């Protein structure tokens, strides 16, 4: 099978991998103890079963039988335990995985088949964190003495336990070939070989699918999806995704250092409410996103955890220009002769900025500006270099309204962290400057709540806070767009994990 994509892995060394493509390959050649299933639940990968003590501090995992590394060496509990220990011992070297072991006290192989993890405090998303900690052969990694040596290791002969084994990875030549692992403990995959081919041009990639040069495209550009749907022998796959686009409203504390530069009217909750009433999310999805997504409400997309974490009780502010006008009128913003409302000489004039690297934003900004005009708000759309925009936001706080997007992790922890006060620093992830001590408190609490139902309650409450305070107005959730040659392969699992996930490629088979 040939897979065409627009990128390539930066490295096959999990200690220091940044790009999505790397994680797609890790998913196919490595195995963690537990992994996310297509329905958003966690299932055993290396682990047959696992349990935790009542206080949530001790987790015990029992491994499946007949697990072997690709070189034939049997895998014991120690092979699953040592990488976690390595990350704990050298968080600087294993920097991309270091976050996942925060709060781990000890990881031990009790016998050949049992791994025990003890924690400092209960962890709310234990399974999620473990799903990135793969069993790796000790000898490949223990040779490195310094963090830098470890990180410079490309692992281009990676050995894992997964259903596919690495045949060749040559980053320079852009070659990545995986072979089926006939000895895989859950039975071999039905696809013999996967060849990944990197394209630099999305039109060429789409053409390659049409011509049959590739059998699968992991990311079809939004603009080409309608065309791909029309191709003969091609199945276009559209599944709800995690990515969302939001309007950021400058919520930086007035006494923040440095002081935010913004229109002070944005501090008025009624103005924020009016703004929310003046955005027609459905129109934006229809017109700008060409129906390849859904109108959004909260920062936790509906597909996280199979829908478990998304607060579906939140009722969206309806699009109603008359109401928006009324709210502003009542709040004392009087219409001026120039069609712009003002109160105490503060005019409702905002910059509406967006990063220049996304063709959807200017169109969205155009529509939004039009609706704003009808309620007496003047927005000036402005395309800005993404790096310059980041600099203007953190730490300068020099912006009014910004359109931008996020691709949250499968677990809500990360996207929730974006709204915490401590993230609004240079290099931090907050771009709204939202600061709410109560929210920060809840954030810490959900991290340490091991009971999923209780954690869900907290997370729902946090979504409500963000929804009502409106540091973000989340506009749409984007679908994942993929495609494959249905005349050659069948049986893929269409899920938020993507048709190229391990679960999907274990099911897929050639068409006879």
């Amino acid at each position, binding site marked *: 099978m040939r897979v065409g994509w627009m990128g390539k892995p930066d490295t096959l060394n999990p200690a220091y991998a940044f790009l999505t493509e790397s994680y797609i390959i890790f998913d196919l050649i490595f195995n963690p103890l537990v992994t996310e299933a297509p329905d958003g639940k966690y299932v055993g990968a290396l682990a047959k079963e696992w349990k935790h003590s009542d206080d949530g501090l001790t987790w015990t995992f029992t491994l499946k039988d007949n697990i072997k590394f690709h070189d034939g060496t049997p895998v014991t509990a120690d092979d699953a335990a040592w990488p976690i220990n390595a990350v704990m011992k050298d968080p600087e070297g294993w920097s991309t995985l270091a976050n996942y072991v925060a709060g781990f006290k000890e990881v031990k192989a009790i016998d050949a088949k049992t791994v025990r993890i003890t924690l400092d405090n209960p962890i709310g998303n234990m399974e999620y964190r473990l799903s990135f900690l793969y069993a790796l052969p000790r000898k490949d990694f223990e040779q490195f003495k310094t963090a830098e040596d470890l990180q410079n290791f490309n692992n281009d002969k990676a050995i894992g336990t997964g259903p596919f084994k690495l045949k060749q990875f040559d980053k320079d030549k852009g070659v990545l070939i995986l072979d089926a692992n006939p000895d895989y403990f859950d039975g071999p995959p039905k696809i013999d070989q996967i060849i990944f081919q990197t*394209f630099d041009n999305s039109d060429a990639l789409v053409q390659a699918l049409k011509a049959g040069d590739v059998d699968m495209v992991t990311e079809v550009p939004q603009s080409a999806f309608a065309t791909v749907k029309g191709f003969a022998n091609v199945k276009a796959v559209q599944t709800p995704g995690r990515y969302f686009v939001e309007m950021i409203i400058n919520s930086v504390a007035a006494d923040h250092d440095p002081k935010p530069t913004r229109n002070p009217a944005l501090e008025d909750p009624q103005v924020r409410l009016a703004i929310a009433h003046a955005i027609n999310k459905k129109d934006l999805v229809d017109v700008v996103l060409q129906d390849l997504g859904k109108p959004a409400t909260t920062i936790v997309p509906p597909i996280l955890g199979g829908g478990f974490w998304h607060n579906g009780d939140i009722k969206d502010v309806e699009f109603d220009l008359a109401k928006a006008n009324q709210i502003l009128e009542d709040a004392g913003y009087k219409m001026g002769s120039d069609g712009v409302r003002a109160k105490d000489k503060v005019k409702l004039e905002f910059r509406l900025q967006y990063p220049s690297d996304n063709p959807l934003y200017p169109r969205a900004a155009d529509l939004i500006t039009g609706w704003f005009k009808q309620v007496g708000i003047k927005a000036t759309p402005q395309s800005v270099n993404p790096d310059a925009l980041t600099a203007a936001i953190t730490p300068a706080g020099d912006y009014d309204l910004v359109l931008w997007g996020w691709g949250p992790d499968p677990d809500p922890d990360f996207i929730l962290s974006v709204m915490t006060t401590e993230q609004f620093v240079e290099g931090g992830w907050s771009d709204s400057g939202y600061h709410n001590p109560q929210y920060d408190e809840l954030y810490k609490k959900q991290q340490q709540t091991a009971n999923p139902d209780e954690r869900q309650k907290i997370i729902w409450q946090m979504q409500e806070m963000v929804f009502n305070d409106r540091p973000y107005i989340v506009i749409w959730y984007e679908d994942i767009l993929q495609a494959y040659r249905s005349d050659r392969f069948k049986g893929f699992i269409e899920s938020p994990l993507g048709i190229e996930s391990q679960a999907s490629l274990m099911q897929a088979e050639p068409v006879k």
Partner: protein
Amino acid sequence: MNRRDYLFRKIVFGLITLCIVVTIDFFLFRVLPGDPVRAVIGRNVRISKENQQALREQFGLDKPIFPDQFFDTLGQWVHGNLGISWSLRRPVGEVLISKLGSTLLLISLGQIFSIVLGIALGLFAGWKRKKAVDVGALTFSLIAWATPTFWLGIILLAVGSSLFGLPTGGSVDPANVNKTFFENLPDIARHLILPTLTFTIVYLGEYMLIMRSSVLEVLGEDYILTAKAKGMSNWQVMRKHALKNAMLPIVTLIALNLGFTVSGAIYVETVFSYDGLGKLFQDALAKQDFPLLQGAFLLLAVSVIIANMLADILYTYLDPRVRQT
């Protein structure tokens, strides 16, 4: 002045130019907006603030641009070390050399075809001025010259892959990459057809137009009339008198173009996912990979300067007047 002095002077000027270009480049990249560390890691949720700082120190970005970063870089270069690419984490020299081959192949094929065809077409059109051939060639060249490279590339890609089954991307089929160059030759050639064609068409127009006007100018000269009066055939006049003189502007243009072809290669390589220098430059710029960018621009500057020197030297053969001044 004899030829040796002339050459020596050209080399010294070339080196001075190189120093200036390199210095400007160094500062130019660093005044670009944005943070290279952020560019390298992207919006990666897994990198903590501490790690970002460590990366910044590892890149030497925590030091002032001048004098620290500047002289550090210069010091490395003097030792023949172009540094380590931030985004690829490999020595820059090694990276450049690994991509040089395929780009050189593409550029030289494209240039050779466009030069030979362009000159032939220009000569022919100039000779048959105002005839149907001339009008046709002129129209074609104007259109080819005005066509954006990436657009032409995409059209050729769509047509070539649908109608002729030519590959949609890459410089060689990924399944064949372990074979030797000679075993792969048919496959490499197949992958080269569309990019080379794009390259040829884009540059062909320019060469043709310059050649044509140059031929027309030469044909109006008195010595051509004299030659004809001597009873030489049209073909002899062309070959012995017109061609050599008409070639002078073309040589200049070729030398100038050699620098630009690498930037032209960026478009062609991106459209055809062709694994070469052009694509590397684009990535380096997008990722603000300063060591790689500097290395790339050093290579560019050196090739432009050498191309110009070669043109100057070639002039001394083509045009005796240059030798004597």
